[in-house]
């Protein structure tokens, strides 16, 4: 088995400790960025829905400002965003390189994206159900927690799945600019040293990772009617 692997992908075998390190770096980047983005994304997504015209806490100013800020950040390509955020990253994370330095730009790029996902998931919640809750005397916060976040859970999980898959892609890109992780590994060995087997192997690993996350997301969201 080992001999076969050595013939099939000699460079992967040679750099395997590097791969392991990179793999866990990717998990760390994606995991941390996803957790932080989830908090902010859900918050902003909810704010977008409740402050929208006709929403349960209608507020034109908050709604339009937040909407525009999200659009601006979504419009900036990620590589440029990393460069743009460099000074801020250094202040907040203490460094601008490596896994730590990648997490902050990942969060900044993902929060607007996930906010939109949450927003569209919550927009799917039947206005009539919200109205029924209002008629039963529920206050705005009760409606957020007992109606929106519950009725919209299936859609939110689907949005989260797309977001995490997107995060994996972004994290690989962060590798290009000194971020560490699988992207960094593939660039350094696969691209710069022309070790094609490393590139291919990294691709397969990412593919499996994405497939697992997508399937898990599908199963979870299906359970939520």
């Amino acid at each position, binding site marked *: 088995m080992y001999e076969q692997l050595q013939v099939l992908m000699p460079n992967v075998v040679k750099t395997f400790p590097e791969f392991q390190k990179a793999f866990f770096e990717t998990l760390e980047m994606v995991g941390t960025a996803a957790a932080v983005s989830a908090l902010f994304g859900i918050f902003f997504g909810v704010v977008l829905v409740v402050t929208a015209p006709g929403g349960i806490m209608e507020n034109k100013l908050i709604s339009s400002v937040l909407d525009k800020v999200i659009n601006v950040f979504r419009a900036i390509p990620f590589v440029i965003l990393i460069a743009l955020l460099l000074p801020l990253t250094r202040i907040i994370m203490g460094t601008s390189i490596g896994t730590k330095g990648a997490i902050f730009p990942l969060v900044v790029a993902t929060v607007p994206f996930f906010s939109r996902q949450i927003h569209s998931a919550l927009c799917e919640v*039947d206005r*009539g159900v919200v*109205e*029924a809750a209002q*008629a039963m005397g529920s*206050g705005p916060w009760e409606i957020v927690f007992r109606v929106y976040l519950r009725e919209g859970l299936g859609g939110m999980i689907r949005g989260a799945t797309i977001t995490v898959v997107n995060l994996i892609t972004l994290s690989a890109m962060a590798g290009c600019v000194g971020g560490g992780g699988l992207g960094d590994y593939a660039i350094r060995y696969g691209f710069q040293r022309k070790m094609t087997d490393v590139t291919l192997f990294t691709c397969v690993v990412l593919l499996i990772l994405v497939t697992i996350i997508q399937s898990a997301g599908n199963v979870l969201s299906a359970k*939520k*009617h």
Partner: protein
Amino acid sequence: MIELRHVSKTFDTGSKDKQVHAVRDVSLTIADGEIFGIIGFSGAGKSTLVRCINLLERPTSGSVIIDGEDLTAFSEKKLRQARKKIGMIFQHFNLMNSRTVYDNVAYPLLGSKMDRETKRRKVLELLDIVGLTDKAEAYPSQLSGGQKQRVAIARALANNPKVLLCDEATSALDPQTTQDILRLLRQLRERLNLTIVLITHEMAVVKQICTRVAVMEDGQVVEEGKIYDVFSSPQQPITRRFIRTTTHIEGIEELLRNDPAALGLEPGDTVVRYDCSGDRTSQASVSRISREYGVDISIIFGNVEMLLDTPFGTMIVVFRGEESAVKAALAEFERSASRVEVICHV
């Protein structure tokens, strides 16, 4: 008692000249224990009006007074408390799909000070009232339309409301299920002493269940009164149109106008529309008058409506015979009926 005083609701649609006056200066008084119908075609403003009662739509002007308290003057918090005493059901049921039937009914009790066991008993009692005890663990997606509306009714009653608002509650249901739901509403009114306000575009619903009715057109209440009075002597053209939708009299009138020969009419015949009500419907007026005055009376159309358990009959009859005998018979006819109208002499 529900009192609407000069309630108006105007929606802004951006520019000033595009304001929509959904409700215009409506004043209504609905007594305790009534089943009050508000009927109108779609766009008449009836849905907006019913939403003004629990302030889901805040009236642009006017006040909503329930049991002496002006809801429009309430703070948000006090209004939410007041809403718990006003149940509401909807055309599309508006159940929460992520919750079981049990949890849907328990929803209004979330956050109340009731202990767990009391809540459980309350929910089961409500499910029993609407006859869905065996569906407690089902999800709304597994229920039929009628069952969903029953769950919605149970949910609306969880906080022991005094008022139940029904917004087109039977419009999405088939005729059989509509009957079941209306029967349930009537039972509930008696059992729980509810006041029910019911919005609909179906005259058939109003005549079966309502004690009083208001007819809405273009944001205004154009006619209002006891169901019997409105039905037996409608004042407004729109009210007549609604009544026609349930009596089928339109068809025969059209035939009389266009093709009287098809009805076998002969020259000298007199066609008369005859309304009678209450106990008069059981008197054998037609055969008695025919015998006494020696005229032939044939019935070419007959319809008896049940207006909240009071029969109301409409007939179109043809008089044939000596002119003087017919005249005398008609005069006697007028004495025995609520209303007699000579439609035409052939």
